């Protein structure tokens, strides 16, 4: 992974709380005292059962919802400024493409909002479509593409303004297993080519282990980080999913999710 070039962390979350309906009877603590530092170029997965606040955490980092207490910095800027400066791109479980635009013009959207000229926009979009291997579909409409292809368009769009950070909320959650594994390889290739920092929300333990440098395990009621599991798989290839290190990682994350401080590799897991 790329070395730290700036003095800032890619993402720095400090003492973050998110409480819905604070003070009323139906108060829900979605996030409680979250602290998380992410180095530039690092791939982090957030994993945990439904309701553990992983999507909420992603949304607070993206300034799509406010923090109740605590602070979020992206490359040294507050989350709000970071959003204004477009320091991150985002991809959701739904591709959320606009049916009235061609694939190319969907990728152009963030550039259009930045006021980039027509020609530059077009060139950049075609470049990105090449990166996600959809050059042949530039002038197609989104509905003509399969779910996996739509998701690749969404990823291309999230990369459009070349942000240092990508936020991904279960982007492969709706895909079948084969497509999913192919997309995971694609994503790792794109990461290597672009050196992005990634926060990736997922339900899938193997997915988290395969993709990440660190898996952040969360637990619900209140949503909090319980463990951080470092993964050292090195260069991923077709056989990686068959290796003992991979299985060890899967076991470690599973144990962490069960709330045990695991016998698999106790020394490597930081407990909170």
């Amino acid at each position, binding site marked *: 992974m790329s070395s730290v070039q700036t003095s800032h962390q890619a993402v720095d979350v400090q003492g973050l709380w998110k409480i819905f309906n604070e003070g009323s009877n139906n108060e829900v603590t979605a996030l409680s005292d979250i602290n998380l530092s992410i180095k530039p170029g690092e791939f982090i997965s957030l994993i945990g059962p439904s309701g553990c606040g992983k999507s909420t955490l992603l949304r607070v980092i*993206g300034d799509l919802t406010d923090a109740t207490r605590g602070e979020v910095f992206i490359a040294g800027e507050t989350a709000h400024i970071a959003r204004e400066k477009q320091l991150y791109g*985002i991809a*959701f479980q739904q*591709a*959320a493409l606009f049916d*009235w635009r061609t694939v190319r013009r969907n990728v152009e959207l*963030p550039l259009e909002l930045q006021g980039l000229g027509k020609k530059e926009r077009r060139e950049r979009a075609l470049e990105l479509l090449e990166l996600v291997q959809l050059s042949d579909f530039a002038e197609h409409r989104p509905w003509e*593409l399969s779910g996996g292809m739509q998701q690749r368009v969404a990823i291309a769009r999230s990369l459009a303004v070349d942000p240092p950070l990508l936020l991904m909320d279960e982007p492969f959650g709706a895909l079948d297993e084969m497509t999913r594994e192919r997309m995971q390889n694609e994503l790792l290739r794109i990461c290597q080519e672009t050196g992005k920092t990634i926060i990736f929300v997922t339900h899938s333990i193997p997915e988290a282990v395969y993709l990440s440098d660190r898996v952040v395990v969360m637990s619900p009621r209140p949503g909090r980080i319980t463990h951080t599991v470092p993964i050292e798989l090195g260069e991923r290839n077709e056989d990686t999913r068959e290796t003992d290190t991979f299985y060890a990682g899967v076991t470690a994350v599973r144990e962490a999710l069960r709330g045990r401080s695991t016998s698999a590799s106790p020394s490597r897991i930081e407990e909170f």
Partner: protein
Amino acid sequence: MSTQTAVQSRRTGRFSGIWPPILIAVLFLAAWQIFVVARDIQPYLLPAPSLIVTNFFTDLSLMWAAAFYTGTTAFLGLVFGTVLGLVMALLASRFIVVNHLVTPLAAGLAAVPIIALTPILNNMFNITSRTPRVLVTMIIVLFPMFVNVTRGLLQVKPVQLELMRSMNAHPRTTLKVLRIPNAIPFFFTGLKVAAPLAVIAALVAEYFGGPQEGLGSRIASAAANTAYGRAWAYVVASIITGLIFYLVVVAVEKWTTPWTGRTQST
């Protein structure tokens, strides 16, 4: 609509396309003709199709003029009603207060009995002009346009709104880039209801005095003169006018919004 037809034609093979409805219509008209002739039904009860057709062609030039007059009223009412409906929908989607104010108002307008309104408008405005008729048509058109377009502007996927926010989009940009395109299929749904309705409104508004050039006036005067074949011929001309309005909307929709009616992407 287009995809539906396409799917059906694949499924039903030779019972598809334009011929089955034409065949049914021909059979129906033949049965009608035979029934009227065999039972010796009087024209004031039910004129034979042959009589209607004869009248249709003898009166053709007058009929053209009448259809043109009523069609113009309908078109003007449709344009004004649509523009007003769009403006109201834009305001209602932008300002929740306006939404609360305008929606009951629009519903109230929809409940206005056009028949009761026409004589009043005839008194308020110059009865010899087209104005009261255009106003009646406009009111009829307003409601389906307002309701449909408002829904289209507001029914945006939450994830698409989050995307716009992540890109730091101003509400005005979101309106332009997301809400308005999203509302276009809804706009056409409204227009497909409103267009034939505009013809009916323009026609019925003629029953309450004023210039006698339109289809409605002709139907009324023919019936009053016991010229039932001619009355029915004008009814046919009215149906054709309404259909033309509808088909023009369908054609414009097909041409401008190729993405409607397709399987939605996720």
